[in-house]
């Protein structure tokens, strides 16, 4: 592995490509700062985002390093099941969000966040609970952790590399808000897509062509025998748990922000439907590279102890020539930065606009909100970088953050969009989801055992196995029960 890391070192040309990219991002923020006159200009780009901008910003923001590394890691261990059961369900939920949810959201004229919708239907307490869940989900902790892994892998000193990335990210986002975020996303989107488009055929050629498919399938009973079966040899419960993670799309803060920032509902619909093609292609590409890395391990081309999370980086560093390596690292850096800037802006908005303004300073001027949100962007990035040092396992961290968001916010938001629930239903649903989630984690960590092979907690009750991955699956029914109880027993009608 040491030899691999040495090989992965970047040289002058690679650093020049990365430096040019970072300088371009800074210049962009400076130019776009002149467009910011009010909080709505900053947080929602004045509600003027058009289809191509929305395609780029939605695709690149939603796909960070967690998806890039995580999907290739799943491809490495489970084969095409990663695409069929983890990625494919997302596209159905995105299609539903485009065709059904987005037009309904555009009816909320002045809304800027999910919390605005929650407050309109359920009142202030539900707004605050929802905002806290959004903040937990949006703080870019996992992206920061993944960024550090990337720096370590390519031999960039982690402290300095992180400082440079955060400084550039914070500078252009603080100056230009969603405008800078969205326009930088277009460059980042192109870079991440093109670099992957170049890497895919090179990876196939590097492993010796498509023969690896037959070779991996031929090892009956072997570890890779199910790599090309849609189920990957996984249980139905696990596949269902994977598929249900796609529900997060329906409460994805970046999606809501961009719907409110869109010039019209049709622009969002076109962007999301176009995005599905790009997401599907990107997911397929990283899954395939994960599978190719596994094939290379089987053939002895890569070390037998290669970890799935390093599969994509290792294979790309092995096969790409200098210059192209810089382009690829630039592409991966883009995936990270586009997520960090977008979600830092969202998390800062959660604190300032969703919590501070209504609770502590209802008469806050537009200028004050703008100034505080700008400071908040920088604060969120620094805090996320520091907190990421506390977490060892990226997958668990992301799973917990996504579970909190889905368990707390999904039922109240969908209830508000598709029904006329009583005000108590929102709070009971949100609190119920949270209690269900915490109870599940508490019982799992107390009575379950850490499975070394699967690298996750498993609680065996009777003949059943409850995996850590099932958190949302078990918390959602509690949220639904709370929502129904609140709707039946609550007194005040919705507004």
């Amino acid at each position, binding site marked *: 592995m040491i030899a691999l890391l040495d090989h992965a070192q970047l040289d002058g040309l690679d650093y020049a490509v990365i430096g040019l990219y970072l300088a371009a991002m800074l210049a962009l923020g400076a130019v776009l700062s002149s467009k910011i006159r009010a909080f709505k200009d900053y947080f929602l780009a004045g509600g003027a985002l058009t289809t191509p901008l929305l395609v780029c910003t939605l695709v690149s923001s939603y796909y960070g390093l967690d998806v890039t590394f995580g999907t290739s890691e799943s491809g490495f261990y489970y084969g095409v099941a990663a695409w069929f059961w983890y990625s494919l369900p997302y596209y159905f939920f995105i299609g539903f969000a485009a065709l059904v949810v987005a037009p309904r959201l555009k009816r909320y004229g002045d809304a800027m966040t999910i919390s605005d919708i929650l407050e309109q239907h359920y009142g202030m307490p539900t707004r605050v609970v929802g905002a806290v869940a959004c903040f937990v989900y949006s703080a870019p902790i996992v992206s920061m952790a993944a960024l550090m892994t990337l720096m370590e892998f390519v031999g960039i000193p982690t402290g300095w590399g992180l400082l440079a990335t955060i400084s550039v990210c914070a500078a252009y986002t603080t100056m230009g808000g969603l405008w800078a975020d969205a326009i930088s996303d277009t460059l980042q*989107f192109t870079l991440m897509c093109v670099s992957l488009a170049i890497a895919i055929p090179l990876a196939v050629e590097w492993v010796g062509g*498509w023969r690896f498919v037959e070779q991996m399938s031929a090892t009956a009973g072997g570890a890779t025998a199910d790599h090309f079966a849609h189920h990957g040899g996984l249980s139905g419960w696990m596949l269902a748990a994977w598929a249900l993670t796609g529900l997060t799309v329906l409460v994805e803060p970046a999606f809501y922000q961009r719907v409110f920032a869109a010039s019209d509902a049709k622009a969002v619909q076109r962007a999301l439907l176009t995005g599905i*093609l*790009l997401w599907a292609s990107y997911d397929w*590409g990283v899954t395939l590279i994960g599978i190719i890395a596994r094939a290379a391990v089987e053939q002895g081309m890569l070390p037998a102890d290669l970890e799935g999370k390093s599969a994509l980086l290792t294979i790309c560093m092995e096969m790409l020539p200098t210059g192209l390596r810089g382009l690829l690292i630039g592409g991966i850096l883009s995936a990270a930065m586009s997520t960090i800037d977008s979600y830092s802006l969202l998390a800062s908005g959660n604190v300032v606009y969703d919590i501070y303004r209504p609770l502590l300073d209802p008469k806050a001027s537009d200028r004050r909100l703008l100034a505080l949100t700008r400071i908040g962007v920088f604060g969120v990035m620094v805090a996320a970088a520091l907190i990421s040092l506390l977490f060892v396992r990226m997958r668990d961290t992301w799973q917990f953050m996504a579970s909190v968001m889905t368990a707390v916010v999904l039922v109240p938001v969908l209830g508000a969009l598709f029904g006329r629930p009583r005000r108590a239903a929102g709070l009971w649903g949100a609190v119920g989801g949270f209690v269900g989630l915490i109870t599940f984690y508490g019982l799992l960590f107390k009575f379950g055992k850490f499975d070394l092979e699967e690298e996750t907690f498993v609680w065996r009750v009777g003949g059943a196995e409850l995996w850590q991955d099932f958190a949302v699956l078990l918390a959602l029914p509690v949220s639904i029960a709370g929502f129904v109880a609140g709707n039946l027993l609550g007194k005040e009608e919705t507004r």
Partner: protein
Amino acid sequence: MMEIVTWASVVVLGPGSIAIFVWFLCDLRRIFRRDE
């Protein structure tokens, strides 16, 4: 089948993403012109 899907992905990610970037550039000029 896998080969076809893979090449389709390469086309979408390569020429496809560049086409969207060019579309954005044309659109950007319109956005800035509207500001003026």
